């Protein structure tokens, strides 16, 4: 084991502290240490976006952030996007519009879409497509993902 660092991170509203190897990636700390397995790993090169979480309110790919870099920050994962027992409008819209099949890219896709809607509450189709370019899905052909994001944004009729 290499050098370690002590970190304190507010994850889904709860303060979590631990001693991590300095090289530990945020995604593995979330998955292996905290058991938040909704955040997935799909590639080695920051292309697929399955690991997308919010760091201080903005989406990041947690496979390209060291856990140590999150020290003192607030992290939101898919498990914390909505209050326990409830659904975020995007989660509901992905369900309604069949925006997922195998479900593996889904948490990252929803977290990326949530950030997109924060920055642009009523995006056009084209803005959604380009806004989600960093998240790969092999199942859906993206069609229903776009429909879901539009529905969550409340502008299903816009072109």
């Amino acid at each position, binding site marked *: *084991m290499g050098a370690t660092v002590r970190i304190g991170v507010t994850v889904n509203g709860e303060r979590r502290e631990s001693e991590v*190897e300095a*090289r530990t990636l945020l995604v*593995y700390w979330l*998955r*292996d240490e905290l*058991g*938040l*397995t*909704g*955040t*997935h*790993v*799909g*590639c*080695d*090169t920051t*292309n*697929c976006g*399955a690991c997308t979480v919010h760091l201080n309110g903005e989406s990041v790919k947690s496979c390209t952030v060291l856990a140590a870099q999150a020290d003192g920050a607030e992290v939101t*994962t*898919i*498990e914390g996007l*909505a209050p326990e027992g409830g*659904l975020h409008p995007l*989660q509901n819209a*992905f*369900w*309604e519009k*069949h925006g*997922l*099949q*195998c*479900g*593996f*890219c*889904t*948490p990252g896709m*929803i977290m990326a879409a949530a950030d997109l809607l924060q920055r642009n509450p009523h995006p056009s*189709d084209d803005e*959604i*497509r*380009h806004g*989600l*370019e*960093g*998240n*790969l*899905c*092999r*199942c*859906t*052909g*993206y*069609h*229903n*993902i*776009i429909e879901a994001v539009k529905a969550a944004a409340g502008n299903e009729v816009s072109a």
Partner: protein
Amino acid sequence: MTSVGQALKRKEDPRMITGRGYYTEDIQLPGMLHAAIVRSPEAHAAIASIDTSEAKERDGVVAVYTGEDMAGDFAGGIPMVWAPPGVEIKTPEHWPLKRGQVKHVGDPVAVVVATSRAAAIDAAEDVIVDYDAKPAVVDPEAALADGSPLVWEEFGTNKTHEWAVAGGDFDAALAEAEVTVEARYVNHRTSGAPIEPRCSVAEYRGDKLTLYSTTQIPHIARFVLGGMLGVSEDKLRVVAPDVGGGFGAKLQVYAEEALVLALAKRLGRPVKWTETRSEHMTTSHHGRDQINYITLTAKRDGTVTGCRARVVADLGAYQQLLTPFIPTLGFPVMGGCYAIPSIDLHFTGVFTNKMPTDAIRGAGRPEATYWIELTMDKLARELDMDPLELRRRNFIRNDQFPFETALGIVYDSGDYEGTLDKLLGHFDVDAFRSEQASLREQGVYRGVGFSTWVEVCGLAPSRAVGPQGVGLQAAFYESANVRVTPTGSAIVYSGISPHGQGLDTSFAQIAGDILGIDPQNVEVLHGDTDQGAWGWDTYGSRSLSVGGEALARAARKVQEKAKRICAALLEAAPEDIELEDGKYQVKGSPDKSMTMAEISGAAHIPPNELPADIEPGLEESSFYDPENFVFPFGAHACVVDVDVETGKVTVVRYVAVDDCGPAINPMLIDGQVHGGITHAIGQVLYEQIVYDEEGQLVTGTFVDYALPTAAEVPRFETDRTETPSPTNSLGVKGIGEAGTIAATPAVAAAVLDALRPLGVESLDIPHTPVRVYEAIQAAHGNGADPPSSQQGVRLDEHGKGSAGSGPTRPDEGGAS
């Protein structure tokens, strides 16, 4: 109201949208160790020595084993299961860890087991392997030439086998042909690339082994792995938890699955191995990789009289589960949806120093549909005939079904005119052609491609493809068990093993309607060999037409018993009980009725009124082996724009009309079609597995191997017709691979249509910007009209201009 036919929201989704899905990588077991594999960096080499001493010294390392160390752990190697009668297929030994020689980049030579993922990866880098490099061969046609380096010297040739099938008299058709067209096509190598990498976790308790794995085939895996490990099946449980997409890449029994089982047994602790994306690109099997030589013969009036295909299939270095079979899998539809009286097919398999190929979405049928449809287009140009008119002249007519092809295959049902007519209702060809002409004046090169497709799926009648048929050493029936609980909900177990298709929902709809239970109260279980009967898993678009039918049959047996119980308690005849709106009632007396909860309560706690000849309990099973395949079909149109300055292709419109019989859940059908088309768009425009001349993999990450993103695909316009299959009682056909099969030619044909005014008549896929740009330049050199601008520069062959790889226009600074 029945739920079949309704777009019921998926029962799978609540856990997946909240991050509570349960994938193999999520599994953590007490004392679990992590494995990392040491892989060959050489395409072909002898292993001179392996030094594991330094790796063993590292912190956290529990064990390091080479192929020699583990030779005694395996009773058998990784098997290949096709034994076609009368044909010998050269099949080398294939052990999970290699001894003596490596045959492709990524071949596993040693394994490190450590207390953490990072420690295992660190130590794997400290294993020192000396290789004596040998000449490699990567081009399948070069591999067949005299003097080629041999992948396997002991065979004296790189040719693995030849397999042929023919019907009708093609030689006569060729001799008498008024028109003959010939073409060569390359169906290049691709990756399945599910977003979930492969992962396997093995556990050994007492004398029982359990494997959790990202697999499409837990039942087959148990059968195969039991043999490899010398373990009887009752001592081996295989579980497929939530699986994050398969696309054929997980229709395999992999070395790493056998390895973690052997390691767990050796070490007495659970062992997990998770694939990196680079490992996926290197050592999860690839797909396609065929060269096709096609001849179509016809009369001047457009009647096609013969079809000949000569297929050279690059199988890579080993035979995996179905490697040599996949190129031939599409043979039943290698005549398309056309009544062609003579068909002559010949396949040659070839070893190269590459990862083996095997099934990837469509598996043999996208390749075939690509060459059938593009050659029909070519014939239409030769005849100066509208390509859709040529298709109509050759369609198998509705009144000809069931239709026996020249190869003796019986197409179950079809309405090819119907889907094409419906497509043209959505897509006005005349309006498109005038728009195309006016855009061209503005320098916009727009093209349309059509595909009228048929495929063969619903694997399969065991008699046709089993040992005494085509020769797969397996059967392909499916099983189902339906159990009604004492309070009237249902738990069903199916032998299929879905991984994204939504079958928890569609199967609940089928069973719920038959049982008279709300689908929300029907729990569908699968993918656990200790839970249900033997099954044959999910691939070949078989889940619904084989597994769904097995489920319907088991559910009907339960319904029949429920009616007998109901009849006894209501003092009526069983044949007078009918199921209406979830109630079992006496015909003509709807006030005399029972719910399933009441009936099942009586089945489990029998009242004295129940006759003794009715057994307690309410549970039935069924095993169903289909009489025939099913043959879904449809008509697709794709519109693309080609930027002639950069060669970049943009899909601007896609219209699909498909027919997979009556819809169980139309929302799920649309989803499968969207994803299938996108898979083909990837293959035709972006994706390609590339090895250099030395056999080094050039496309080892998602940076180099470009999957389509949301920005590269259009909205999809979908519609359906519903022509029931007579093969099963539900009338259903498969739809999981249809989009990929249909769209491969449609997208490619659209690019060619756009390029034709520039003098480009043919162009191998993938239609990457550099290929398209160079084709335009080459055609100009041949005297064709120049494009409107001569700008543009040589782009790198891979990466640039593809999805996720940055700017592609010279004026954006992406290439210089």
